[in-house]
């Protein structure tokens, strides 16, 4: 049974929350290179390869607010800003639970459909390890 309200789960960049988000997703992957040989008895085998992670998010565009706005993410991408410590937290109030690692803003898209609120979406690419917040 689901017991965490998704509204609580958010992204924190440095010490500031990413604002105006309505959906965020943490993807963690491990590459599994094939290690099958003639001695594998007809079963595929693999080894554990490189790991990577990314966070994707989308929301409703607004340039105001105290925190990280879509405009600030766009400015960070244009300036090729350095990595920041990212948290994908399950406790939006304190950021005391969830996962953390250094990440880089990789893209931001702004969409403006007629007669609907403008939206944005983007992603953060992990640069190095992802670890649980102790």
């Amino acid at each position: 049974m689901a017991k965490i309200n998704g509204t609580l789960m958010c992204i924190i960049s440095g010490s500031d929350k990413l604002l105006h988000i309505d959906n965020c997703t943490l993807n963690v992957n491990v590459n599994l290179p094939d290690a099958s040989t003639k001695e594998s008895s007809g079963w595929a085998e693999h080894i554990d390869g490189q790991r990577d992670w990314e966070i994707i998010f989308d929301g409703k565009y607004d340039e105001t607010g105290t925190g990280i706005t879509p405009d600030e993410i766009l400015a960070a991408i244009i300036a090729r800003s350095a990595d920041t410590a990212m948290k994908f937290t399950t406790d939006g109030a304190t950021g005391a639970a969830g996962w953390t690692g250094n990440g880089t803003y990789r893209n931001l898209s702004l969409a403006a459909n007629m007669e609907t609120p403008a939206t944005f979406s983007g992603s953060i690419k992990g640069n190095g390890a992802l670890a649980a917040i102790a």
Partner: protein
Amino acid sequence: MSTASVDISYDLIDGIYDVLYGNVIYELETIPVYKSVPKPPASVYVLIGDVLGSEDGTKDGFLYFGTVQVIVVDESAHCADRKQSQGILGVVRGLLKATKPVTFTCGSRTLVVFSHESLVPVIEYADNSIIRSRLIDIYNYVLE
């Protein structure tokens, strides 16, 4: 966006009323605009009807979307008699949506989107033999 969930329907009705009241003029006649219908009503009037809505927004704030009705009521029995009410409807639309991107003021709230959705004509037969025609204009709104 508001940080607490609230009922925005009266703010929206009030905003529409402020735009229309005293300004719906058809063939030199000022048409009454009602938020609630007095007894007896005028033979032709504009009524701001029901607000149907739901909640949207982000993880930090609330946004409200749905539909609101603006109704032109008259005592015509046949569609051929509705030239006046259809003309009034045109005036109302022009007042509520003067240009495509512009929305009107809604009290302390921000009206993000206001667009025309559809028109529903309804004929109503009352107990006292008065026949009323209702041209129900339905608008979409997004309000924060």
